[in-house]
């Protein structure tokens, strides 16, 4: 079970870029794969997006729900709060 992977796939757009950077910064174990038109972020066990980190990258207030504008697919149990979005098994 411990080897199970969660993933998050976003469209490869300018809006996703700060989110992808934030995921990279906050999840040292993540593997980021750039595919045609989309970016796949994969990690064992869990993957977390912190609002604060994205805000730092994007330079303005950022609502966690803005994630869904660029979301293609995901797998894992979703834990979504005002301050973070987490996937885990």
């Amino acid at each position, binding site marked *: 079970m411990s080897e199970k992977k969660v993933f998050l796939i976003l469209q490869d757009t300018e809006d996703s*870029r700060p989110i992808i950077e934030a995921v990279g910064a906050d999840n040292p174990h993540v593997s980021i794969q750039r595919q045609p038109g989309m970016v796949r972020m994969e990690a064992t066990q869990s993957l977390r997006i912190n609002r604060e980190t994205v805000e730092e990258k994007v330079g303005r207030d950022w609502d966690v729900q803005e994630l869904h504008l660029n979301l293609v697919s995901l797998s894992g149990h979703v834990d979504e709060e005002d301050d973070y979005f987490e996937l885990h098994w």
Partner: protein
Amino acid sequence: MAIEISSKQIEPIRHTYDYVARRIGEGRPGSRYQEATFDIQPTANFQYPSSYAPKYALFDPARTAIVMEDWYAFLDPRQYYYSAYTVARAKQQEVVEKNFAFVESKNLLTNLPDDIKTVIRKVLIPLRHVEWAGNMNNCSITDVGYGTAITQATLFHAIDKLGIAQYLTRISLILEENEETGLDAAKQAWLEDEMWQPLRRAVEDMFVLDDWFELLVAQNVVLDGLLYPLVYGEIVDDLMVRGAMSLAMLTEFMREWQKEAERWTSAIVKAACLESKANAAQVSTWTRVWTDRLSDALEPIACAAFDPVPTQPAPATKRNLGRLFSKSEDQCTRSVDSLSVTAVSQVRVALLERLQKQGLKLAEVA
């Protein structure tokens, strides 16, 4: 027949432009902000020096006492380049327009009590001239400043200043039911009323500052850093408690704008101070000088808002508007613990504390 669609991944040879890759490292996509900012400033082939400043090259980092190894250390935390800036402002503009339409349709400004209208006329409307000065000053920084990171942000600032001046103008037009009497009276006050002269003299002195970084500190860091919290914070809050909710709606943009501008000015001060002790000392001196001067200049304005001399309530008809700004009469009563003195010292302390956190050494230049 079955068709098999397979996708083939093509690795892009470059992820961004070379000049961006040199700064952020190969193999990473650059952001639009980085692509529109890094190294855009022309640095060579200045064979025609300007006739009005022959000792400087066309774009010359030596036009300021601030010395930077890399002028792109002044990155804008808001990451404003043309598109991000216009999209952000368009969204805000929509909200402001709705607020204006609402206030106008319900006569929320024209129905305010006379004493509040007097404060709006005396304190708020003449500020359009200060905003215009802010536009001039930011255009001037954009002209002689060095490094796109700074000059693109100051040009956006210049445009914002015009926008804010226009909002103030519209508030006056609503208040006077589309007559320009309020604007004329405010201009007269700006030119002649004693309460405005220290501030007018200060911004006019800024017009002729030689060092553009000093101008940036004086205008964007200090003047805006004191004026906006004082007027759109303290004074508008006070009027709001007295019933002028509509005014708070119409000036909400200014308050939002200041919060956003603070992030940028803090980053500028921080980057300059990080670079060298000499820069930190220079920026600290400028900050100290302009904060002292401008907080003194703002006191009569705060005083007119918070501690006006109780006068016979004159009905503010179009004809006697001019009399509100008569030169001779004492405009307000002030003592060490009066509301206006407290308000000015509060915004001053808040500004200096924020700047000290960015690395200013204010105690050393006191």
